[in-house]
């Protein structure tokens, strides 16, 4: 049994950012990962995926992007290289190929059991990712036999799919990206669209993330917004990172030949049923996008100078068929594959400390978990709007490391 002050679980951007902050404070720690650094970025993402944030925004504590393409979007191998180089440079004490099997509370801290021995510690940082498990809705059990069912972790590229049409359930970042590339491979694609967040890649010649960062929206804190629960549930925006800085939305997908239908609400006797609320889901998304664009325009006007921004404009409202399809018999052969792009959740199956709420979510305040000495990172709007972004790890790790340092000092006293 080894003893250490802090065990950090997960060597992704969050775990590494925390490690740097702990090194700066002289807090003795180890970073455990079941694979290599950036394991899930390396192993659980489809081939074409690039980050949805530009390179300049992949900042980490003490590290800014210095490459030649600040406005580009990293591929997954590039990101893994970026994080590995960061880990090496800061000297993060990472133990790779070490799977955490169980974490239990003790009288003065925690015991972390791994497949390579156990650690006792005062403090634990859960940095194992907000997107560790694909969420597939219960209605998927009604899927008729003979149709292939995939989640985004199993999907790599269109060539892997069997011939025939593909129904993609969910139109957030994952769903729209998969619909785009599977349609481009020549397949019939049906996209089921519920509530979604529509954003243009570029507005007034700047990346949408540039605007949100410059206006301070990414720094808005968890204790500053009126409805935190709703902010935390917000689906990922419809964005894609491409060298051409393309916008992907329901209009571009429709023009490419993707059939847009409402949210999948039932699979009953082989028949898929789609919600009739599609038009309202699109209206909500268009209105929300326009409110953001209004606030950008107001911010530019208030700042009093124009840094080569283009003129204000508005995007075409989402176009829909007058009578969108409400049902499809899946036994008729049009659809051979269903992909569940219905979100992700963290995996706490190894966590034997009573810190989860009735829906299995971590109980925490700004990343400070409801168990002394335990911290979590990377969850949506955890401390700030940017908490689930790579760029959010630095500020959150700094705050939580400060909190941890005073906790450890008090615990030792």
């Amino acid at each position: 049994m080894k003893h250490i002050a802090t065990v950090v679980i997960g060597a992704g951007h969050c775990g590494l950012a925390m490690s740097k902050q702990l090194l700066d404070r002289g807090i003795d720690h180890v970073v455990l990962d079941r694979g290599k650094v950036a394991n899930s970025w390396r192993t659980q993402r489809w081939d074409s995926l690039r980050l949805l944030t530009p390179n300049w925004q992949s900042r980490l504590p003490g590290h800014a992007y210095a490459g030649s393409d600040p406005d580009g979007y990293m591929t997954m191998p590039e990101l893994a290289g970026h994080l590995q180089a960061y880990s090496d440079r800061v000297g993060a004490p990472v133990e790779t190929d070490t799977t955490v099997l169980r974490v239990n509370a003790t009288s003065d801290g925690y015991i972390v059991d791994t497949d390579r021995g156990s650690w006792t510690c005062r403090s634990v940082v859960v940095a194992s990712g907000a997107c560790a498990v694909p969420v597939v809705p219960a209605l998927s059990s009604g899927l008729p036999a003979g149709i292939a069912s995939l989640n985004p972790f199993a999907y790599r590229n269109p060539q892997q799919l069997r011939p025939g049409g593909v129904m993609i359930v969910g139109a957030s970042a994952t769903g729209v990206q998969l619909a785009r590339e599977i349609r481009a491979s020549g397949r019939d694609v049906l996209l089921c669209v519920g509530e979604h967040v529509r954003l243009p890649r570029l507005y007034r010649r700047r990346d949408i993330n540039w605007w949100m960062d410059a206006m301070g929206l990414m720094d808005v804190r968890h204790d500053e917004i009126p409805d935190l629960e709703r902010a935390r549930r917000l689906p990922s925006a419809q964005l894609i990172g491409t060298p051409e800085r393309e916008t992907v939305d329901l209009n571009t997908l429709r023009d490419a030949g993707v059939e847009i239908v409402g949210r999948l609400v039932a699979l009953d006797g082989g028949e898929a049923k789609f919600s009739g609320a599609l038009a309202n889901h699109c209206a909500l998304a268009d209105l929300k996008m326009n409110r953001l664009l209004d606030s950008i325009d107001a911010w530019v006007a208030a700042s009093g100078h124009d840094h080569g921004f283009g003129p204000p404009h508005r995007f075409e409202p989402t176009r829909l068929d007058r009578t969108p399809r409400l049902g499809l018999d899946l036994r008729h052969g049009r659809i051979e594959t269903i992909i569940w792009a219905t979100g992700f959740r963290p995996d706490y199956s190894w966590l034997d400390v009573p810190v989860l709420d009735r829906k299995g979510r971590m109980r925490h305040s700004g990343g400070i978990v409801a168990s002394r000495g335990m911290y979590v990172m990377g969850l949506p709007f955890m401390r700030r709007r940017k908490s689930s972004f790579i760029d959010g790890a630095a500020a959150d790790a700094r705050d939580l490391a400060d909190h941890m340092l005073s906790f450890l000092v008090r615990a030792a006293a």
Partner: protein
Amino acid sequence: MTVTAKHLFERNETMTTALSTSQGVNNGVNVAALLGAREALSQMPEAAAFKWRASCEWIQGTHSRSTIGGFFGLGAEQSRTKTFSVEADHPEVFASEDTAPTPVELVLAGLAGCLTAGVAAVAQNRGIQLHSVKASLEAEMDIQGILGIDDEVRNGFSAVHVHFDIRADASRDEIAALVAQSQKRSAVFDIITNPTAVHVTVG
């Protein structure tokens, strides 16, 4: 269930007055009470399980009368001081007496009532003063379905159109957002746009 739950939705005139004074907006919706109920119910979800009821008796022909009284919610039977009665019939073109609206028209009235209440509540919550809210609804139906002429035609509506005319101290987009948010949180809109399992038994 606790007393807190039972009193969640009770009218609180002091609160309404305070709210309307502070924001200068009064649509007659006690948003503070609704938000308080939302907060409390998120802590005790079992109190959020409601059962709505209606009973119906055949009068004659296509004419029937439904009676609506108590319901279950907040962990207890909720009684009203009175019962409501809603009649339904079919029009003369269906060789009926036309003594009351048709059931499908009552569905439209239910949708209109639900969306309109939602518009008022959302407007109050967002500090928007309403002056008038008018909704007109039209549903399309091919009656070859109900007459059994063509099995490929469904019995129900093939489309529902709702048009709102709203006068309020708000921009066009703000008014559109009121209507969109009202649909997002509407029970009847959900009932009409999404499937529901219906269990029918015979005594």
